[in-house]
């Protein structure tokens, strides 16, 4: 059972605009929810309870909140629910060479994930549903084990009115589907969603190779999954955006950062190119050696804190990603709270994107 105190506070948090509180106010709203989650998992997850046994009873600040290495979710199946309540198990990686993380979800955690994703995204793309072009193959949803990729698409599908898949099952361009999508919707707002690396490789490079281009001048592209493989190809965010606009006419591009272990908790790139922290989550940057919290603008490991999960003890995770906080409460896009950038992955850790991108080159 989820504690009522947690549930009430979480609902309050989610009822607000996601980017209206300043950093101090936001900590006041978020901390009680995180404290309740800490108590909840101590009570329901023996593994979590053991891991934090030397911690004080209750964190007094967000910085004090204990964190687990994200790697633990690859090694162990950490759960705070009984087996009967398992609704689905999310796998963060589909390939055999990598160890997939297993995230145990019950119905209510899964529902919270969908709602949070929608609330956060609404701030960038509005409440209305639009024709949706998914840069993937329809078969991605057919796998029985839910991959992070499928979960991402299912989440974004809530924003779709007519959903069209841009790729065939062999990951080649479905030019007929693209042509008819363009013909129907060139003059109106549309959404395009895909994983960063697949958008580049299976969509933009494929368009270029076939000397094709699209015209979706009222479109917005949302993409996620990490830059690692594109950095290897010397493709940075400005290059990515430029090519999107050149080949598809789409003027608005929003990247988002989020862990497969915390689906729904997403950090979306604003018009200024900054990743913003919504009120139901937080980001801390920690020195990789001392694990002390770094000052703004200093690089370190990214810790992600989410108010969502009650079915598994993954509400505070130390990632293997390197980033830095750029500022707080003063982004010129008008959103309050912290904003940050992701700079890459910690060297020498097992390479793994945030999503299990199928294509490798």
């Amino acid at each position, binding site marked *: 059972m989820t504690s009522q105190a947690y549930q009430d506070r979480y609902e309050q948090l989610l009822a607000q605009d996601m980017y209206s509180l300043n950093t101090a106010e936001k900590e006041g709203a978020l901390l009680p929810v995180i404290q309740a989650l800490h108590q909840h998992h101590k009570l329901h997850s023996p593994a979590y309870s053991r891991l934090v046994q030397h911690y004080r009873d209750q964190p007094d600040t967000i910085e004090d909140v204990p964190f687990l290495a994200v790697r633990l979710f690859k090694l162990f199946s950490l759960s705070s629910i009984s087996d009967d309540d398992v609704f689905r198990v999310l796998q963060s990686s589909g390939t055999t060479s990598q160890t997939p993380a297993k995230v145990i979800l019950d119905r209510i955690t899964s529902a919270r994930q*969908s709602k949070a994703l929608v609330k956060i995204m609404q701030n960038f793309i509005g*409440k209305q549903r639009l024709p949706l072009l998914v840069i993937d193959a329809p078969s991605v949803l057919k796998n029985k084990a839910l991959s992070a990729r499928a979960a991402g698409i299912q989440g974004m599908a809530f924003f779709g009115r007519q959903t069209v898949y841009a790729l065939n099952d062999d990951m080649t361009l479905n030019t007929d589907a693209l042509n008819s999508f363009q013909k129907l919707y060139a003059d109106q707002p549309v959404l395009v969603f895909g994983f960063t690396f697949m958008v580049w490789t299976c969509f933009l490079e494929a368009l270029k190779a076939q000397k094709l281009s699209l015209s979706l001048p009222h479109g917005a592209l949302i993409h996620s999954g990490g830059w690692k493989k594109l950095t290897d190809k010397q493709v940075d965010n400005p290059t990515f955006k430029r090519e999107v606009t050149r080949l598809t006419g789409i003027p608005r591009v929003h990247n988002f950062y989020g862990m497969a272990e915390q689906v729904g908790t997403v950090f979306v790139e604003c018009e200024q190119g900054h990743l913003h922290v919504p009120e139901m989550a937080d980001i801390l940057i920690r020195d990789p050696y001392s694990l002390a919290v770094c000052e703004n603008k200093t690089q370190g490991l990214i810790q992600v804190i989410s108010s969502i999960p009650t079915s598994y003890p993954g509400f505070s995770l130390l990632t293997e990603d390197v980033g830095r906080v750029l500022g707080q409460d003063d982004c010129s896009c008008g959103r309050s709270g912290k904003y940050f950038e992701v700079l890459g992955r910690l060297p020498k850790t097992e390479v793994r994107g945030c999503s299990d991108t199928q294509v490798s080159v």
Partner: protein
Amino acid sequence: MTNQEKLTQAFCDALGIGPDQVKDDLQYNTIKEWDSTAHMVLISELENTFDVMLDTDDIIDMSSVAKAKEILAKYDVSF
């Protein structure tokens, strides 16, 4: 057909379930037929049946048959 009958029909067509299963307390994700993929089919079925345009808030709030009625009521569909 009454709106209640139309609603029941929309649920049956979208989810592939029998009319006897469409009770007010039937909840999203509690039967395998009403998963997130079927949910989107249901949404467009309801939109077509009642000639309304549902937004993303409506979709995430539509967690049961009773909730579906509540949401449709906002668009002047009465039950």
